[in-house]
């Protein structure tokens, strides 16, 4: 009996190893092979961009490159890279998630200085998505704390997107009250009382608002709001741009450990660098991200209304300190949010 179980275990392990060996060799018809681990809303953008880059790389280096995509919640994706998902590049929702990968030693701690503009080739901001005709007349942040207004936003504990939402509201309240933290806490606490349900992820919250029809206003990334309007009909929703919001910078980085092992550093670097070229910037704008290049931004000026935007670094001293102050256990979010209220 013992012999039998042992040989069974050997069989299982052998099968697993055989699969492992074959899996690591598949999909290598191209000269180089990149894996871009990204977050949810960038799917359409990178589907187009990968074609653009592959063509460009072919003419520049004469080599073919195959790019594979992985999408999911930003935090989950960072976790999978830490646990060994072999991403050559990561393109996530917030710098904090890439910091986490850096803390695990998989990429250089100074990654954010490697590429221009805080390594964020495109930006976005937080806007309001309201029902067609704006029946509750929501114009600015102050309208969100009025009694009877239902606000949909995901849980900042689990969703990167929701942290931008929370900080946008908090930053607005700080500005309005001359930097008074107590007043800002009061404001965001009031806002959270108007949230009937905190979804775990940004897409989940969007689905709650647009498909399930819950709430009067959805706090969303501008690109997500545009996409929802485009996919589900311009006759159903309006986008409201507040007077002030936060500059959302979804950053990109090379995973040093992986590219050095796979020998793909050159291609990976070109892949991210090319995001800053006019063609790629135009692509980003077409997929509703705000381009960094002024010449491209000018062309899309009527799509992206001008508004006052503050940055994480300017207002909260960067993601690391914002994370510790607001979203760590016992942080400001925990202090002001009581579930079921």
């Amino acid at each position: 009996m013992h012999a039998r179980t042992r040989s069974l275990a050997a069989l299982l392990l052998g099968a697993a190893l055989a699969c492992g060996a074959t899996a690591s060799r598949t999909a290598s018809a191209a000269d180089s092979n990149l894996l871009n681990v990204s977050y949810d809303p960038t799917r359409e953008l990178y589907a187009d961009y990968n074609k653009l880059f592959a063509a460009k790389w072919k003419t520049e280096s004469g080599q073919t490159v195959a790019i594979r995509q992985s999408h999911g919640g930003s935090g989950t994706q960072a976790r999978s890279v830490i646990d060994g998902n072999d991403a050559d590049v990561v393109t996530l929702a917030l710098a904090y998630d890439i910091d986490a990968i850096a803390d695990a030693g998989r990429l250089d701690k100074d990654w954010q200085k490697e590429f221009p503009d805080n390594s964020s080739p495109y930006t976005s901001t937080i806007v309001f998505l309201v029902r067609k005709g704006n029946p509750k007349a929501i114009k600015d942040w102050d309208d969100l704390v009025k009694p009877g207004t239902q606000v949909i936003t995901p849980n900042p504990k689990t969703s990167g997107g929701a942290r931008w939402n929370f900080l946008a509201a908090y930053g607005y309240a700080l500005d309005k009250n001359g930097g008074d933290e107590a007043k800002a806490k009061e404001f965001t606490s009031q806002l959270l009382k108007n949230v009937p349900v905190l979804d775990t992820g940004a897409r989940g919250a969007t689905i709650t608002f647009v498909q399930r029809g819950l709430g009067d206003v959805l706090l969303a990334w501008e690109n997500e709001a545009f996409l929802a309007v485009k996919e589900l009909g311009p006759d159903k929703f309006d986008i409201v741009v507040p007077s002030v919001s936060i500059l959302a910078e979804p950053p990109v980085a090379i995973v040093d450990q992986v590219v050095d092992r796979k020998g793909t550093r050159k291609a990976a670097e070109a892949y991210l660098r090319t995001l800053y070229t006019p063609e790629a910037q135009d692509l980003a704008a077409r997929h509703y991200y705000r381009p960094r290049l002024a010449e491209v931004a000018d062309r899309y000026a009527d799509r992206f209304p001008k508004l006052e935007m503050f940055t994480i670094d300017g207002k909260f001293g960067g993601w690391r300190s914002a994370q510790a102050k607001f979203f760590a256990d016992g942080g400001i979010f925990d202090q002001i949010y009581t579930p079921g209220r």
Partner: protein
Amino acid sequence: MALDAFFGPAAAPARPVRSEPRLVRGVLIGTALAFLAIFLVLPLAVVFAQAFAGGVQAWLDSLVEPDALAAIRLTLMAAAIAVPLNLVFGVAAAWCIARFEFRGKSLLTTLIDLPFSVSPVIAGLIYVLLFGLNGWLGPWLRDHDIQIVFALPGIVLATIFVTFPFVARELIPLMQEQGAEEEEAAIMLGASGWQTFRRVTLPKIRWGLLYGVLLCNARAMGEFGAVSVVSGHIRGETNTMPLHVEILYNEYNMVAAFAVASLLALLALVTLVVKSLLEWRYAGELAASRRH
């Protein structure tokens, strides 16, 4: 209760001893059917209605799209590896538990049930902790260029884990009930171990085995939680059908999402139909084997 007290004395002498009053029967049957309709038939109908909302062509298009094809291929492949392995394991485990007495037998029985009681998410996480880069074996595996989690092997391992008990659970009570007399007789008459298994044991357990395999297969194709944790979500490569359904749904692509979901549902339905067909075809034989 109240009804019984009310109708009881008058109705009691007239009706046969084991039959319920017509009203009770009606309520029971009605409740069962209503439950079935609301919780099974209606959702299934919605899945198919949504899937064909864009017409048959749109349904087909969403299934032959490369990422969907890759997901279907991966799901079938994972099931094709996991189910035979669990078949071998299930028979071996049931055999040794039903036929032999040894120390730690009850522990083994409990362990076999473990995947039923552990949340699938944990099932996925244990493999990440074991084979992930920060896990026990991760660094060694990477040095030898072997990828387990976030690739096919991880998905297969997670699938095997969650479908582990189906075959064994189906066989253990059956084999315990059947006893070992016939096998003993076969061996006395000079049959080898393999002959005994193939000509005596296998025919006796084949129905239980078939049920176990079908259930195991259905779960292997439908598993979401455990596979989601170890998948890495690489498009066209490590997304199984259930994961692909979720992705499409989150991309507002309802028709495609439900098209893939309907295919999954169809696979499950085919499993059920095959089971019923076999039951019907071999009804006599089945009754005979149950008599043991």
